[in-house]
């Protein structure tokens, strides 16, 4: 019992959470048990060594992802709050389509009517259309219908330059969408942005996460297509652990193909 008491007090001391009274009690107990002093000092040394272990910091992408999830949750919640809100949301969507049509009309008008600032205006309109498409994509990707979500990922592939939010939405869809067709569509769209390092990393990560044989094979194909050699280790790991023979064979072929290239 005395031994356990010493341990308890000593561990409190290590965390700096010992009262003066208990510290005195510990000193008193140790004075009667000298053999314990050395053992506890050795343990204290190990305890302090932990402070020197380096740990990496998470990437900024983690915070961005969380913000995206929270924003999507809040948006979904808002859309559910009342019928009035639903109507308002639909009106807003209709308004967006109206504006987009108007902008396209204006764009066509500017094409037909020559002007000195024509090029600048077209650029401006293109930017606005791009941002509208992005907004539409981010709205559609949250829809309950798989068909709508597939439309969203196809829309993402058509954007000439996708921003961080769009890429993140595609990655999240690839990893977490319940529908395999939507996941496949997002994989296809991500292929358009495969020159980006974060997309290539996300693809390797997705290979590890996916449990569907279809997805594993499709991702392996994409990794071979973009010649991502750093995916070899992940492929080996999946190959070793997967039960499906067809997937095993496919991964073996992909590994060989990457090694030979």
């Amino acid at each position: 019992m005395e031994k356990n008491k010493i341990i308890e007090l000593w561990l409190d001391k290590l965390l700096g959470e010992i009262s003066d009274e208990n510290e005195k009690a510990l000193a008193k107990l140790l004075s009667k048990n000298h053999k314990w002093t050395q053992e506890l000092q050795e343990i204290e040394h190990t305890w302090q060594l932990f402070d020197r272990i380096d740990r990496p910091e998470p990437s900024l992408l983690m915070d961005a992802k969380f913000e995206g999830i929270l924003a999507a949750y809040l948006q979904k919640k808002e859309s559910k709050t009342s019928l009035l809100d639903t109507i308002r949301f639909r009106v807003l969507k209709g308004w967006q389509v109206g504006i987009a049509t108007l902008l396209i009309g204006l764009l066509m008008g500017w094409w037909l009517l020559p002007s000195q600032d024509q090029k600048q205006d077209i650029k401006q309109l293109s930017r606005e259309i791009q941002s509208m498409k992005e907004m539409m994509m981010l709205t559609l990707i949250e829809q309950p219908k798989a068909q709508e979500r597939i439309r969203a990922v196809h829309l993402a592939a058509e954007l000439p330059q996708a921003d961080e939010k769009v890429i993140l939405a595609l990655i999240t869809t690839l990893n977490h969408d319940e529908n395999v067709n939507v996941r496949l569509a997002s994989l296809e769209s991500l292929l358009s942005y495969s020159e980006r390092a974060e997309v290539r990393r996300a693809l390797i990560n997705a290979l590890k996460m996916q449990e569907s044989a279809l997805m594993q094979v499709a991702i392996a194909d994409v990794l071979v297509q973009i010649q991502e050699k750093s995916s070899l280790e992940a492929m080996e790991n999946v190959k070793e652990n997967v039960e499906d023979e067809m997937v095993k064979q496919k991964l073996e072929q992909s590994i060989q193909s990457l090694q030979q290239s």
Partner: protein
Amino acid sequence: MDQFEDHNLMLKVKEGDVGKLDLLYKRYSRRFFGFFYGMTRDSATSEDLVQNVFMRILKYKHTYKENGDFEFWAFQMARNVQKDHYRKNKRYAFQEDMNPYERQLSETKHREKEMEKSDEISYLEKALANLSEEKRELIELVRFQKVKYAKVAEMFGVSESAIKVRVHRVLKELKASYLKLDM
């Protein structure tokens, strides 16, 4: 005081002011990341698991009690997320890290860094990685994430003194293990 604020924030989240979760994320995401990194040794996986914890918090916010303790509740969730991940991906446990942080270091720079690290620390890291999942989890919570013994004891379903005896045993085991590696 912080714990009290965390509790109040979580109660607001529960009542529907979900935006307040952002503040809890700022306070806890690094600790959860540290916990998951200690368990998986993989940054990308740890980042995903942190998201999973917050998604669960959102999903189960209605179960948070009026007299609850957010740190205890959220770390319990983190432990469950870690256990689910381990069950699903046993094959990936303790893999070498492939995070951007490491990739950014050039091969040479990385090697230099490794050499600078004292042998003692390297052996301790290896000894930690060789511990059983439960023992590593215990050290992670108590030592690295500084969760109070009383809370960890409740998480493990034992008394506070029993948890302290366990920590002592694990520390002794670690000491013996890294000394063996040094030989």
